[in-house]
């Protein structure tokens, strides 16, 4: 392994990595350019550039409302996910190891069930007030839909740290369950919690199907507004896409920055193993 790490990458390896990066980044660059292009269907590069798309998007009265709704929905999903998933995964790791295969299986289901099916099923089952077609039901749905991201991140991190022994060590030193979780377990699985939160936030922020089918126009989210614009004006829609993933990036960076210390320490702790 050592020699493989030290040797310089071959031109073939650089080529493959380059192709991969190009493949991933091209649509993003294209979207950015398209959002500031005046006309781009007869030439290789756009015929002109303007920020009109952005102006029009931000002057729409729904722009800030939908932005706020999407942020609220994303933050709420992250919070619910944290409170539901983290303790569950922890207890499964420490006490109920036999339940792990079942949970692992359950966590594949959101990938297997199409969003449309989940949304329609939820609308049917929770067809009573005040739940029916409410943002509350939507949050519950997005939590289910994004649960594997949180579960996987936290579960992998838990598996990398000797949680049962650390728990017992803390208990032998007089820590109650709260202190065990708060002072010992959470700091050590913080990277997993963080990456899970980021994935949940980003996914929910860009989620369209569930929002459209469960709440519809009653609680318009940013992606819903974006889809409306794709039917009217591609430039504005592109501008909104750019705003959408810029927000996702800023939030990611903010979370990473705010928890810099926690990450550093935990990385050290994992590196030690």
């Amino acid at each position, binding site marked *: 392994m050592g020699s493989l790490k030290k040797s310089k990458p071959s031109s073939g390896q650089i080529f493959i990595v380059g192709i991969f990066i190009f493949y991933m980044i091209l649509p993003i660059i294209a979207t950015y350019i398209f959002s500031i292009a005046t006309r781009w269907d007869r030439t290789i590069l756009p015929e002109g550039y303007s920020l009109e798309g952005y102006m029009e998007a931000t002057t729409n009265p729904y722009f800030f409302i939908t932005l706020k709704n999407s942020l609220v929905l994303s933050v709420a999903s992250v919070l619910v996910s944290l409170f539901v998933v983290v303790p569950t995964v922890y207890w499964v790791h420490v006490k109920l190891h036999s339940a792990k295969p079942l949970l692992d299986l359950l966590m594949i289901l959101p990938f297997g069930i199409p969003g449309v099916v989940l949304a329609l099923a939820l609308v049917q089952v929770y067809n009573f007030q005040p739940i029916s077609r409410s943002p509350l039901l939507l949050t519950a749905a997005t939590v289910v839909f994004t649960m594997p991201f949180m579960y996987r991140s936290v579960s992998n991190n838990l598996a990398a*740290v000797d949680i049962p022994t*650390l728990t*017992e*060590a803390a*208990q*032998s*030193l*007089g820590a109650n369950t709260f202190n065990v979780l708060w002072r010992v377990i959470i700091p050590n699985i913080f990277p997993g919690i963080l990456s899970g939160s980021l994935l949940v936030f980003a996914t929910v922020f860009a989620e369209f199907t569930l929002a459209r089918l469960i709440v519809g126009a009653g609680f318009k989210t940013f992606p819903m507004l974006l889809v409306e614009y794709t039917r009217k004006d591609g430039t504005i829609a592109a501008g909104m896409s750019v705003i959408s993933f810029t927000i996702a990036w800023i939030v990611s960076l903010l979370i990473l920055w705010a928890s810099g210390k926690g990450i550093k320490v935990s990385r050290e*702790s994992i590196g*030690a193993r």
Partner: protein
Amino acid sequence: MMTYLELTDISKNFGNVVAVKDFNLSIKKGQLVSFLGPSGCGKTTTLRMIGGFEIPDSGTILLADEDISKIPPNRRGIGMVFQSYALFPNMTILENVMFGLKMQHKPKKEMTSIAEKVLDLVRLQNTAKRYPHQLSGGQQQRIALARALAIQPRVLLLDEPLSALDAEVRVALRGEIRRIQSDLGITTVYVTHDQEEALSISDMVVVMNNGLVEQIGTPQEIYRKPDTRFVATFIGTANEFHGIVTDSENVKAGNLVIKTSGLHNFSIGSEVVALVRPENVEVFDQKPTDSMVNVVEGDVDTITFHGAITRLGINAGGKMITADVTITGRNILSYHQHVWLSFNPEYCKVMAEK
């Protein structure tokens, strides 16, 4: 001295597996007691029941006359050191050592002074600001010990604390554990599968096998007067001579007639095994005088140098006998050399065959 920690009729099953059965033990204050046995013998389960991490199916655990069987681990005031050190990776050494004191809501000043004291005790004062992964395994385990001692535990539990360390550190650290333990007079239960470790540091050894106690005694008693065949063969090495009792002091084992110091507990004709430790087998390069008993002839088959002693494997007419000798310059043995062995009847321990 009065009994401090008392386990009475403790049993524990995991499903259909009997982990511990009818375990009884009294430990006096300040004693270091080792649980010794092969893996799966129930020693760790018993330790974990004392610590509160397992609840016994039946029986009681009394600590200073208080029944602690059902008290959760965080309220027992029992310190524990784990095989894997289990230091908190997110905390510095000082934070690790102060963790238990923080849980007791001690004032900051007192916490610092206690932490300094215990770090001093394990001779690692200068590591306070470092993180666990920056220390060696041996240092981490000493910190784990300091962390457990900081709360001034009523009992200290050590679960194979040296198993993850290399030989040299193991020997040094076990000496240190014993020094600190006796300096503080702290009642300690030590789990190990390493007989040398158990014999060298304990006041009392509990030998366990298949969930049952085989023998409880001082290291000397366990080694010299094993109660059961398991103890005799698990602790140290023993040559086994399987045979039949022919009279009040002789056992016939194949072609050999082994003279013992007395067989009053066995009836004539009963099947027995006579056990002789390798260090009690004498080796001669010439035929000894007729006055010697239990003389066996054979050829040197293996020679293994162990430093202070040399272990010989001697083929005595197909039967392999192990003998430990201290070889000095004048009596160097060679392979296939013809030798005579002898052992004193005093050192011959006879047990029933089954």
